[in-house]
């Protein structure tokens, strides 16, 4: 068995023989972390679109856009906080701010922030200040989470670039829109759920693992899953892919 000193020496030798090992490891970690952000719903395919727009003529495009998103979002969140602290809340103004935040979060692919904004806007229609304040807290929470994740991702990206490497682009799993007649909030066994899909049935059933999210319109049937829970979240779709 190697002792610590021998192990470190072996590692140094390997680094000399394979000087790109650290870079490869960094790229692997970046790809894994990036994939987890898509899997957990923090990011959607729009973020992949941004990564694909980054090239030699716009080498810092993603960083620029994300920075603009942070600046704009924090301004909007401050404005929302102030608006909801007023004795007479101007819900039209609140709705306009949330709409704008929804737009920019959608544009960078910050999916959970976008979905939180959609729920917030539904609450604005009811014009209940307390409820709106609660939804604002949810939006803030999702924003802080995605900000933290994106900062980590961009730092990893900078390290790869500094080491002379290229950034691996993680493709967002393909989403399929499905139609259903069932209500959000209920649990159903798969055989009870009617599935209609615009894609070939064979393609869907061949995927071994799926996650369903439901908007106010529908639910997805999952092959090979014991139970499907209908989630009252806006933003649709069936994620085709595996962990």
């Amino acid at each position, binding site marked *: 068995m190697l002792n610590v000193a021998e192990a470190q020496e072996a590692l140094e030798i390997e680094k000399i023989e394979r000087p790109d090992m650290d870079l490869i490891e960094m790229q692997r970690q970046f790809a894994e972390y990036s994939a987890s952000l898509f899997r957990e719903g923090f990011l959607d395919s729009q973020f992949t679109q941004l990564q694909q*727009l980054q090239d030699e003529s716009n080498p810092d495009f993603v960083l620029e856009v994300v920075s*603009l998103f942070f*600046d704009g979002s924090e301004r909007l969140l401050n404005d929302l906080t102030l608006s909801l602290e007023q004795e007479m809340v101007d819900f039209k103004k609140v709705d306009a701010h949330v709409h*704008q935040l929804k737009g*920019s979060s959608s*544009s960078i692919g910050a999916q959970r922030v976008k979905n939180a904004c959609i729920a917030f806007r539904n609450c604005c229609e009811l014009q209940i200040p307390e409820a709106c304040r609660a939804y604002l807290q949810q939006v803030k929470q999702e924003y802080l989470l995605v900000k933290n994740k994106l900062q980590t991702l961009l730092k990893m990206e900078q390290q790869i670039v500094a080491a002379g490497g290229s950034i691996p682009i993680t493709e967002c799993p393909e989403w399929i829109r499905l139609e259903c007649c069932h209500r959000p909030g209920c649990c159903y066994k798969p055989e009870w759920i009617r599935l209609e899909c615009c894609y070939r049935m064979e393609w869907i059933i061949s995927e071994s693992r799926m996650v369903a999210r439901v908007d106010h319109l529908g639910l997805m049937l999952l092959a090979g899953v014991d139970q499907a829970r209908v989630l009252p979240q806006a933003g649709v779709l069936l994620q085709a892919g595996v962990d």
Partner: protein
Amino acid sequence: MAAEMMYSVLIVDDDAVVRRIHKVVLERQGCKTTAVTDGQEAVNLFRHGETFDLVLMDLEMPVMDGKQATLELRTMGVKSLIIGVTSRRAGPEVEAFIGAGLNDCVEKPLTSAKLAATLHRLGVHIS
């Protein structure tokens, strides 16, 4: 390609994130872009004699919204293609926006594929 021959696009949106993204999407397609932050600025540019092949018009903006700006541009006789770009789904507001004089309307966020499909639908070929 000489700048004067490039397809010129005016981006009208109050969101800096959206303006930046649309600029890069369009420039990737070989377009020359100008960006403003509200409908009034867009109208002012045309009033001062500027011309654009295409206008990408957001709906909800301060000072002057996209519907009003589109109405004014069409009243002025502007013949440029105007494509509405909005995060609102189909509904009365979007219908009114289209009715103001849009050639087409797409849902945000704009991507290269959406832009290409929309321009194809409108019979536009950017060389």
